[in-house]
């Protein structure tokens, strides 16, 4: 059984695998961008705070 046949129970039948695969990759990429941007901001705040405390 191919991936296309396996995922054909989803909406869009024989194209389901391709359509949902494309949308999933896009969603994952955007979520990674968001999480890394947010995490980077929090880490920067923490490291700057530690630096200021050390220099006090």
């Amino acid at each position, binding site marked *: 059984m191919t991936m296309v046949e396996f995922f054909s129970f989803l909406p869009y039948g024989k194209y389901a695998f391709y359509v949902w695969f*494309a949308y999933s990759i*896009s969603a994952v990429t*955007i979520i990674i961008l968001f999480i890394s941007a947010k995490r980077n901001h929090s880490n920067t705040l923490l490291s700057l705070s530690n630096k200021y405390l050390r220099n006090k």
Partner: protein
Amino acid sequence: MWKWIQRQASPKVFYQTCNRLIPWFFWPFISLLMLGLYWSLVISPADYQQGDGYRIIFIHVPSAILSMMVYAIMAVAGGIGLIWQIKMAEVVAKVSAPIGAAFTIIALASGAIWGKPMWGAWWVWDARLTSELILLFLYLAYMSLNSAFDNPRTAAKSSSILAIVGLINLPIIHYSVKWWNTLHQGYSVGTGGIKDTDMQIALALMFLASILLYVLLVSIKARTEVLIREQNSSWVKEEVRSLIS
């Protein structure tokens, strides 16, 4: 308006603007994305030739347009930084690069996935695909060059020159389907593009959502970059203390 733009050259004002923009862009982005997805996946009818497989267009086309638009913004911001020495323009250029690269990756990946059922191949060395791949390499080169220097001003100068030189690739990507006999279809927007109103609405919604996503991500990433660059300023010390406590 012009005065407002000029005031953004100040790191503190720019940081505050970014902070203010985030909530204003987040909810409209989520709303437009949800509406766009509903229009793309539910309301839009199946294509008469490609069936439901064409629905990849609603992520492929906006991300492809954004990949070029972000590169143009990055090069223009880099140019502004080079000519007028505006540090905040350098920040915009720097933080735009990974976002543009992500849009390029989405465009290439969704295009490859769309190509398999329609062309029978994940990838062909077609002019449009190849020039878009070169765009990804340009983004990667920009990011590598920007991180290769310790001094952010030197990094911004050298990477901005690369970004400006790379602008030549944008008309090549855009006109590749006209200049060469490519396997890639012609323009999806405008003359010869999609005709169905629901499809056009879905595409417009997803495109607007992509623009909001870009502004949102630039705002989030730019404020971090401003904090790092201005870490010795008294206002940053106060800001960090107030946020941590």
